């Protein structure tokens, strides 16, 4: 029988079928951060259970960590308790962890692939919904809750029902300044935030093949915002050269062996998907979200929805709520929206290629006077180091950006990096929910290029025009 990539990954990790439609699935890699793990370790202790496979785990603090003045450790006593708990749990159990002082520390979904800890064909979980990121390496990766974290710690397995196969097939090629972030927002605006619920999405089309590995990570990362817990891209030469020579990837003979296996990680010609959606990108430009859900996105040269428009009839109340929260009006031009803050970072867009794009746009320019703060938070210490070697930090600082230390930062504002009430931010992160970046803060999700251009102009502009 012809199989999709998802079918192959599923079958390879399938241990047992129960007669109620559930299966027991083996988990190869378990990523852990400080926020969703303490209760799981506590549960394990209370039940007097051991960790099944310590070697399957990589831990890193990221959500709660400061991005400035790290030298003295974490000042916020409550955040400190949580990071200390992670340290203690890892130390007691002898688990691989990258400390705050370690150059390899960073956002869990940036660090895993960067280290070669995540490899094609693995099953990967983390108590974090953006685990979908790792699907870019053809790994079956999805987020889980804390009870499931405990379940994986204790058994190395999860009880799962197989998802449906969904294919999002991209038609046309990426145009200049249309990035994978724009592609993700375009897809979500078309299928909605529940469009992929119950499905594993595989992205196909020559545009996907032409994306870099980092761009694929951005796309798979945003898959959860379309309701699917897993996003996948099949293995090709790019995948294999990406994982080559990473610290934890196999070496020499082992690498050649692994490579043979990895090359099979593509959907068979003619494999059947439960759903296929074609998305034509030939006429698409940069995207921006205007509302409080990632599906509320429009083209940068577009306007906010017209409530009279028939397509919005059933959504009227949601649109009104979003207009009111965001302080915007129907039919308003996107370009006229003025900004207070710029955030470039998060597991969606904080890798070296993202930073290079930003540097290109802001080089020899100054951020606009109305921008109160513009911060750039690299995804990991190694991304930071690379950027500094390339001199990008100097470009950023000269333009008026702040250059921070790695972490989740203003993506969710668990540390000091937050929006104040009613502040409006162009953000390269992944969620524009009410309060996400700070109570009553207003978030517009965009690509790094659009965020950079907005920083220079003080309002949104079409980066193709500058």
């Amino acid at each position, binding site marked *: 029988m012809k199989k999709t990539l998802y079918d192959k990954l599923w079958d390879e990790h399938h*241990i*047992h079928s*129960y007669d*109620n*439609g559930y299966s027991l699935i*083996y988990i190869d890699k378990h990523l852990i951060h400080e*926020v*969703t793990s303490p*209760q799981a370790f*506590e549960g394990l202790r209370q039940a007097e*259970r051991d960790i*099944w*496979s*310590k*070697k*399957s*785990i990589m831990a890193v603090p990221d959500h709660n960590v400061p991005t400035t003045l790290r030298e003295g450790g974490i000042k916020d006593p*409550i*955040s400190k*308790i*949580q990071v200390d708990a992670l340290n203690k749990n890892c130390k007691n159990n002898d688990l691989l962890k990258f400390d705050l002082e370690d150059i390899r520390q960073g956002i869990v979904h940036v660090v895993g692939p960067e280290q*070669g*800890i995540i*490899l094609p064909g693995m099953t990967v979980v983390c*108590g*974090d*919904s953006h685990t979908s990121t790792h699907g870019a390496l053809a790994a079956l990766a999805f*987020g889980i*809750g*804390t*009870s*499931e974290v*405990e*379940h994986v710690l*204790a*058994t*190395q397995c999860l*009880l799962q029902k197989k998802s449906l196969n969904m294919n999002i097939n991209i038609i046309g090629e990426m145009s200049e300044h249309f990035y994978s972030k724009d592609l993700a927002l375009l897809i979500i605006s078309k299928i909605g*935030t*529940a469009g992929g*619920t119950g499905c594993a999405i595989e992205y196909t089309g020559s545009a996907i093949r032409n994306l870099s590995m980092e761009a694929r990570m951005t796309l798979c990362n945003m898959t959860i915002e379309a*309701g*699917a817990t897993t996003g996948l891209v099949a293995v090709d030469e790019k995948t294999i050269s990406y994982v080559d020579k990473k610290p934890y*990837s*196999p070496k020499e003979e*082992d690498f050649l*062996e*692994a490579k043979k296996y990895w090359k099979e990680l593509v959907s068979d010609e003619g494999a059947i998907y439960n759903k296929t959606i074609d998305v034509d990108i030939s006429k698409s430009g940069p995207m921006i979200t205007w509302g409080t*859900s990632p599906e509320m996105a429009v083209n940068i040269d577009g306007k906010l929805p017209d409530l009279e428009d028939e397509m919005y009839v059933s959504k009227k*109340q*949601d649109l009104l709520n979003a207009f009111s929260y965001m302080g915007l009006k129907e039919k308003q031009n996107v370009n006229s929206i003025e900004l207070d803050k710029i955030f470039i970072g998060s597991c969606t867009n904080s890798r070296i290629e993202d930073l290079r794009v930003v540097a290109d746009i802001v080089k020899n320019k100054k951020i606009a006077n109305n921008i109160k703060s513009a911060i750039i938070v690299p995804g990991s210490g190694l991304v930071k180091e690379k950027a500094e070697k390339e001199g990008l930090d100097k470009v950023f600082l000269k333009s008026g950006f702040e250059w921070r230390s790695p972490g989740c930062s203003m993506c*969710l*504002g*668990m540390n000091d990096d937050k929006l104040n009430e009613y502040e409006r931010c162009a953000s390269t992160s992944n*969620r524009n*929910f*009410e*309060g996400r970046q700070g*109570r*009553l803060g207003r978030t517009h999700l965009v690509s790094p290029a659009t965020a950079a251009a907005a920083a220079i102009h003080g309002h949104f502009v079409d980066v193709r025009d500058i």
Partner: protein
Amino acid sequence: MKKFEEIKSVAAYIDRKNIDTDAIIPKQYLKSVTREGFGETLFDDWRYLEPGNLGDNHSLRKKNPDFFLYNPKYSGAKILIAGDNFGCGSSREHAVWALMDFGFNAVISTSFADIFYNNCFKNGLLPIVLNSENFEKITSSVSRENNIFTVNLNDQLISCVDFEVQFEIDKRRKEVLAEGIDDISETLKLSNKIKEYENKKFVKTPWIFNG
């Protein structure tokens, strides 16, 4: 986990779609390292008119009088009704802990986000998916004074004075709630099978064990 028991209570209704887990429990409360005490800050941004933090005395914070759960007719509600795609966004199980700590034992919607839905069953919260026709039937009757609903898991039935609706739930999930099954113990019964699988894997894809 405690066994799920029949619920008899008024139902609180919020007419809103895509309620995300950031709204259910904002991030500042995720700094807690326990599973308890999240009820006071359930829907925090909607519920209070001033910002709050972990460790605050929330009873001193200014409340939003228009917040739906402060409507006296919803007082003591154990059933929450909300629009499509409830629980989308972050995987935080704290959302489920907060709903339960507040006193909810069941949530009714037309659809739930996958991770949230899963998390419910690990904690004894019953998420009920209704088709839009049945959903409307329930929501249109919710505002009647003192309308008590009964949720019976065994019969998969929601009933009130003048009607009842059936709901679907898969067999295994029903069992987990009804019996209060601990998934980990269940899985560990298959330890030998897991080890066998691992041994094969050591030979076939040894690079998996690269930690």
